[in-house]
Each structure stands twice: as structure tokens, then as C-alpha cells.
């Protein structure tokens, strides 16, 4: 059986990639995708601990999490569509109205 550490390291790598993308990418859609990667890193953790501690609760939470992520993406994409309509851009460095 594959040891638990492998799953956790994978999850950590995914989370780091996602966080890096969120902080550095300019396109809002790419940022949204990176957020999804981070969420999936969390889902892998849920499933891993669920399997290795012998209960089904973690896997159930992972399912919920995927459902919520789908809804979140829908909301996020809707916002981005409206942004494109109003501002003609979804480049994040151009969206800085809320400042001093």
C-alpha cells in the first residue's frame, strides 16, 4: 500500500502551486483555477486521513467540498463576466478601484 506521506506531500505540492498561481498570475480566470487547485489539495487531505484513520466522514466531506467548489466557480465566473462587461478587462492589476 502506498504510504500516507506520499498523499500528504502531493497535497502540499498542489497547495503550493495553487498559492503561487493565486499570488502571481495576472488573469483572473487563471487565479480562479489556482484557487480550485488549492481546494483540491484540501480534498486530497480529507480523503487521505479518512482512509488511514478508518472512517467514511472525510470522504463525505470531500464530496461536499467538491459540490461547494462547483457553486463557487459558478459565482466567480459570473463576477468575471460582469467585470469584463463593465471594465473591459479581467487583468487583476487594472482592478484597483478600492484603494486610498
Amino acid at each position: 500500500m502506498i504510504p500516507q506521506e506520499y498523499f500528504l506531500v502531493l497535497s502540499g505540492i498542489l497547495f503550493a502551486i495553487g498559492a503561487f498561481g493565486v499570488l502571481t498570475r495576472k488573469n483572473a480566470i487563471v487565479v480562479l483555477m489556482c484557487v480550485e487547485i488549492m481546494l483540491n489539495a484540501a480534498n486530497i487531505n480529507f480523503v487521505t486521513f479518512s482512509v488511514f484513520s478508518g472512517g467514511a466522514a472525510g470522504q463525505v466531506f470531500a464530496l461536499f467540498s467538491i459540490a461547494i467548489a462547483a457553486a463557487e466557480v459558478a459565482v466567480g465566473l459570473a463576477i468575471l463576466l460582469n467585470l469584463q462587461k463593465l471594465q473591459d478587462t479581467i487583468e487583476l492589476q487594472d482592478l484597483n478601484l478600492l484603494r486610498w
Partner: protein
Amino acid sequence: MTFVEYTWLIPLLPIIGLILAAAFGRKTPEDGGYFVIGSVALACAMSLLVAYEFFTGDGTPVYASQVWIDLGTINGVQYQFEIGYYVDYLTALLLIVVSILCTLIVIYSLGYMHEEGDRKRRYYVEIALFITGMLGMVVASNYLEAFIFWEMMGLCSYLLIGFWYYKPSAAKAAKKAFLTTRIGDISFMLGIIALFGSFGTLNYHQLFDPAFTESFDVNYWMLLFAMLCFFGAAVGKSAQFPLHDWLPDAMEGPTTVSALIHAATMVKAGVYLVARSFPLMVHTPEVMIVIAVIGGFTAFFAATQALNNFNIKRVLAYSTISQLGFMFLALGCGGYIIATAGADEHLLEVGNTGYMAAIFHLMNHAFFKALLFLSAGAVIHAVHTEDMRKMGGLSKKLKITSLVMLIGALAISGIPPFSGFWSKDLVLESTIAAAGVNPWFWILYIAGTVTAFLTAFYMFRLWFMTFKGEESEAAHHAHEAPASMWVPLVILAIAATITGLFLLMPDGGLPAVIYTVSPEGLAIPGETLGLGWIEKFFTAWPTYVSLAMAVFGIGVAYLAYYKKTLSMAFYTKGGNKRIYDVLQRRYYFPEFYDYVGEKGMYGLARLVDFIDRKVVDGVVNAIAAVAVGSSGRFRKAQTGMTQTYAAVVVAAVSVILVLLYIFAGVR
């Protein structure tokens, strides 16, 4: 039943008269005057009963008081303010004098104020409040209570000087009197605070207890300070140098007010305060010297200003200041002897004679000065002017007035057997006795003797100018005052004639009852000679000196203002001489007050203004500027870039994780 237990009623009765006059004054004759007369007469009867009972008793002070404000216990000392009454010989004597005078003057007001119309009600209400203040001050059982009544008198003095407030001069005089006496009042308050803070009580019966004196030695400087402050209060209230200048201006009020408040009673409150504090003051010889010097100097200083004044009431006002100076002189001299006497019984006897002389002079002066003022009031009532140059030849029209005023003038000049002679000579004698202890007091004796000459001169100048000489324009229409005015005058004239004889009463008379205790707690009466006083007076040289001075003064006035063989205009170069001008302008004291007000007070106000604008406002503005400036810098942190915020969150969480790993041992 004893009357003394009901002493607290005495100041309360005029209040009832006040309320009745204020409530029903409009609907009753004389606008409520009869209510006030009735209540004051009741208070007078009560005072006489209390005094009679006290003088026939064994002489131990009677007091009762209730806790008014309890401040709790600090360091084992219970601090309480009480309210109550304290009756001893001094109180009893003052009660007699004050209540009789108040009654007579209120009755006199009936005639004098008759033509005042609507304003009469205000007059009677204010005068009733004043009488409450004076009687309350006299019967008070502690300094705080006395202070409250003291302030009440100050207020009434202000209101009554400004009775004709639509006259600018009256409004100004009222303001001046109020502000000047206020300096003394603040001094009184400081003294009370010092006394209360150092000794934990303000009650007379505790402070005057000889057993209490040990604590005076411990806190000697505080006692000295408090006593100086009390004398400062007396200087303000009794118009002594350098706070004397309000009293001549106070003559802007009705003459009855001048007679009652600014001659007979309120200005005596200062003398009373010093006499009341005597058991404390005899511990401090320094204060006694101050009192004697200020008193002696004021006596002379004020008398000079009366010499060439033409306003009949102002002459009397200066003479009041001068006579009050005499009282302080006697108190200071007598007190100095007591303070330095140790246990020497003879010196204590002499010292207490000086103390008695002051109280005796206070009593005599109250009667003859009230008489003089009310006579002047009758004259003003008849001729409608206060300028003596417009009077003259009034004795034919105002027979009673001229006669009673002559009695008053003889009394104040010190001609036997009128009252002023006895007390003034006792005052001068006490300065000689003090000079035996400390030769510097000879200067005060000389000042007193010269003042006796000046007094006789200006009083008879006043009398001759008013009643003798050619009949003036105003005299043609003059007519004698109504009965409500001349009856009190006659009673006062009788009093001014006989009150001096209290000294000669059997069983020692006044000296046997009016005395104080020495620092050692010894209470030895003054010289109780009875009729022996006559022998003592007329075998001693100072009596003849002061008599000669008085006769000389009267003689000069007679020659200058009746015979006109002595031309005053010649000596003053028709009023152009410099000293004449200085006296007319009151030694430039009004200017001096204005200067102090302008430079001192206005300067202080400007300093306070500067502190307010620059320092206080500056601090507030600086705090605001710091907030504005720093917010301008810190708001740059809000970039509006989502990724910056996210980076901060990630960085912070990373730092927290690292810290947890290192320090909190989270693995």
C-alpha cells in the same frame, strides 16, 4: 424654659418678615414695611431676653449645634461641619446693640423711604435679609456658619448700595464695594481652610477651649497664617487701609442703609470677627502688631480725608473708617499685651482692658454713628441735597435734628460725659499700656491723639456748616422730619449719652464681663474699677491731652466755620494747595485701584488668555495634526490590489506557522 435655648430663633425671625413682605408686600401699607418692623422687633425682644438671661447667669458660654455635613474620618480625625449657636458675653452684647439699632433704623425707614413707591418692597426685603445675616453672624457657632452669614451681608450691602441702580454712580459704587470686600472674603475662606485643615474643627467651643491650645504650638505657622487671613477678612469688611476706598462710595445708597450697614452694624462684623477670634489670636503677637498698626494708621489716614470733604455723608463715612481703625488699634494693643504677658496678672488685666475698650468703642460708636447718619438723613430729607455748601442755617427749622446731631458730634469728639469720651480714652490708654511693653507703640498713641483732634474738627465743621451760618436757599423750604424719624433719633441720642456709663456700673460694669483668655488659658477680667474709673481718668495726663485736642479741634472749627475769623481758604490758598487736592482726590486711591485693576487683573487675564489660546488649544491642535499626518502615511498600505492582500495573508500565516513550529512546539 430658658430663652438662651431659643437663640436660633433670632436670625430666623427676620426671614419670616422677609417672606411675608415679599409675598404680601404689594397689598399692605408701606409695601410690607410693617411685617419687617414686626419681625425685627420680635427678634430684638428675643435678643434682649437672651442677653438679659445670659448677663444674669454664671457666664459660661452656652452652645448647641447639629452636624450639618459629615466629611468622614481621615487619619483618625473626624471632620464635620456643624450648624448651631454659641452665646457668650460678646455675643450677648452684640445682640443687644445690633437688634436695637436694626429696630430703630427700620422704624426710621418708614418715614425716610415713604416716597420711594414701588421700590419700597425690595428695600424692606433686602434689609430683612441683611438683618438675618448680621444676627446670624453674631450667634453662629463656628467659622463656616459665620462665613455664610458674612457673605449674606456682603450680598445685601451690594444690593442696597445699588438700590438706586439706575444712577450710574450707585451701580458703580455697588460693584466697587462688592469687589473690594470680596478680597477680604477670599481671605476669610483661606483662613477657614487653613484652620480646618490644621486643627480639624471650626467650632468656637472646641477652638477656644484652653485644653486645645497645645495643638497651636505644633502648628504655629498655620495658626499665624489663618489669623492673618481672618484679619485680612476684617480689613475688607471693616474698610481698613488698604481696602477702605469702597466705604465712602457706598454712601450712594439710601441714608438708612448707610446708617445701618455702613456705620452701625456690617462694618463692625470685621471687628467682631477679630474679637471673636481673640482666644486664638493672642497666641500670635505678630498678628496683633499688624492689627494695631493697620488700625492706628487707618484711624489717622481716614480722618485726614474727612477734613475738606463737602458731602455730609462722606464726611461721616470717613469718620466711620477712622473710628473702626480705633477699634482695631485697641484690639491690637490689648492683644499684644496679652500675647506677651505670660502669666503676669497685672499685664493680663491691662490687656483685657484694651480688648474691652475695643468692644466698648464698637458699642458706643454703633449708637452715636447711627445717630449721626440718621440725623444727616433727616437733613437730606429736608433739603434734598448732600452738599454741605448748600445747607447752612438749618438749626432754626430742624430744631430736634440739630440738637441730636450736636449730641452725636460731642460724643464722637470725646467730650465727657458722652459715650465717645470713655471709650476713646480707654483706647488711647491701651496704646500707652502697649507702649510700656514695646516703645514703638508711642507712634500709634500720637497718631490716635492727632486723630482725636482731627475728629473733633471735622465733626464740628460739619455741624457748623449744616446748622449755623447764613440761612441758605434750601433752608427756606426745610421742615422737621415726621415722628417715625425723629423718635428713633431721640432714642439714639439718649443712648449716645448714656452708653458710656456702662463702664461705671457697680460690680465692675463692662470690664467684668468682656474679656478674653491668655495663651496660658488664664481669664482675668479687665480693670473693674466701677466708679473708680472717674478718678482714674481725671488723674491721668492722657485724658487731659485728648480733651485738650478735642476742645482745640472744636475751637478751630468754631472760629473757621461759625465766627469766620479764621479763613481756611487762606491756609489752603483757596483750595489750590497740593495737599488739599490730594485729600480731595482721596490720596489717589481710586486711581490706584483702577491701575491695579488695569495692570494687574487685565495683565493676568491676558496671561490666562495666552495660556488658553497657545498652550491648551496648542496641545489639542498638535494631537489632531499627528493623527492627520500619520493617517496620510498609513493609508498608502491600502493598494486596492487583491493579490497584495493575498500575499500579506500568506506571508503572515507562514510567519505564524514558523513561529508556532519554533516556539510553541507544534509538530
